[in-house]
């Protein structure tokens, strides 16, 4: 399993557009991706659940990537967070 921590800089937080693009991005990989904030965790393929976390600017999230292609997936997803969130 791979994981990274990231602090959200987007003023609206994980809102519909980046969440939607994130789901599309994750679908490219076989690995399961979990986004955790505090004691809450969601499968990042679930758009509305992800939005329902209410992740805001300044929140730090932990992203876990687990599966056969976790190395490439982790790098790509971390790059996505930095570029879009």
């Amino acid at each position, binding site marked *: 399993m791979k994981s990274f921590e990231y602090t959200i800089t987007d003023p609206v937080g994980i809102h519909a557009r980046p969440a939607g693009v994130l789901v599309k991005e994750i679908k490219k990989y076989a690995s399961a991706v979990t986004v955790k904030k505090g004691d809450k965790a969601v499968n990042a393929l*679930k758009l509305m*659940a992800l*939005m329902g976390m209410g992740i805001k600017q300044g929140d730090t999230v932990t992203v876990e990537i687990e599966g056969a292609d976790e190395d490439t997936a982790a790098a790509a997803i971390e790059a996505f967070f930095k570029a879009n969130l």
Partner: protein
Amino acid sequence: MISIQGKGVSTGVAIGPLYYYQRAKSTIRRYEVEDVETEWQRFKAAQEKAIAQLGELAEKARAEAGDEAALLFETHQMMAEDMEYEEAIQAAVQENRLNAEAAVMDAAAQFSEMFAAMDDPYFQARAADVKDVSNRIIAALTGVAQGGIDSPVPVILAADDLAPSETVQLDKSKILGFVTEGGSGSSHTAILARTMGIPAIIGVGDQLKPEYEGREVIIDGSTGNVVIDADEDAKAYLVKKMEDQRKQREMLEKLKGLPNETKDGQTIKVFCNIGSPDDVAAVLGNDAGGVGLFRSEFLYLNCDDYPTEDYQFEAYKKVLSDMGGREVVIRTLDIGADKQIGYFNMPHEENPALGNRALRICLNRPEIFHTQLRALYRASAFGRLGIMFPMVTSVWEVKEARKMCEQVKAELTKEGIPFSEDVEIGIMIETPAAVLMSDRLAKVVDFFSCGTNDLTQYTLACDRQNADLGRFYNPHHPAVLRALKMVCDNAHKNGVWVGICGELGADLALTETFLSIGIDELSVSPRAVLPLRQKIRETDVSQVREKVLADLLSDENTI
């Protein structure tokens, strides 16, 4: 062939199938299903249809207005195929044997409640998106487009009359023209039709029968004639008329880029009235110089709850930046009277036209006004903004509203949020009080805009929605024209500019009058811009001014 006579309120000829407006169904049946697998497949098919529709809408929006415009539909698409949403529906259908419509409705409630309960206004607003997506899937399941138009080809839309909240939700690309049973020339259907540049006929009563649905109908907005299953001669005549109008349009195209200048060198600004950011394309397409009236009500009509500051800001910003530095006058909330919104919870009034409406609501409920003013000032950084207050009768109302503007500016300064210092502040002149006080009001504003629909209604004490009062409701009445002259004189003495943003602005029979009394700006529906420019360019004010002014005072002209 069946011929019906109504009243034409927007010109043009259109041919197409007749389609009755479907009112949204208020109840969805719940029942237990026998064959859960077939029911599940029924859901999957509807979901696929909804996703395909949203994809088409996204592409259309992208082609017309770019990537940002496509975003809403893409978000809806992603919600429609969201894994968790689908799982909730699957469980309801396959485990609880619930019919698909009810399962979708339950999932909609579950997820929209989740969003509504969040503390961030952005996420709260997503509750409406979930409901919207779910309604689309339910519509695909039931085969009835809820409040929409479920037809592969564009139609002539028939209805008893359409409420403002209904007209804003219509898919405009599917409408060739309107026919309504009731209504008046100033009803919302009529205004919408003129904005869209398509024909509309009102007041056909019960002559139009539901069994005509789907049959070919030709409507002629200049005569008010509705013909169902036209015979060859009638059809040939009307098709020729349609062609002639097309040629006329082509001729008007040549006026694009030319100034609105009379033969003797007097210029007047020609701006547009719009009701939503989508209308900007038509404003620019008709070469108007700006927006003289942007009705902000659509933002409120489109929501289930008070629209947030950010939501409003985005809409205002879009119009201001799309207009690329041309002036945009946005009218603050103008509801009440014939425009009611549920969540405002306004108590019933015996006489709503004289009641708690427009600026009165804003001053009585400053928290609503404050949100709108903040959104407006924030947007002012993105273009050239004018803010206009409707339904003014006294100087103190304007002073109180301006004080709130100052308060908002102070807040934004403190928060480090940019805004323009050059926002013009104006008022609608639509009450006799505002006309009579225009010398004083001119000292506290930058501009006046005459709302001739209400000004006529209040000056003549004549309800504009009442079809029986047609001949008493006369916007050419000298009382109305004298009021306009008085407003102009008082404005110009104080260096204030005057526009007309009511329907009268586009009335070519009065263009000479408006030029003679010195109106500075006419704000009309986009389609009226070029015919008006043609009329202005043909006019020599020095030749007609004396007669026009004499007519306003003449005893013979008291009607």
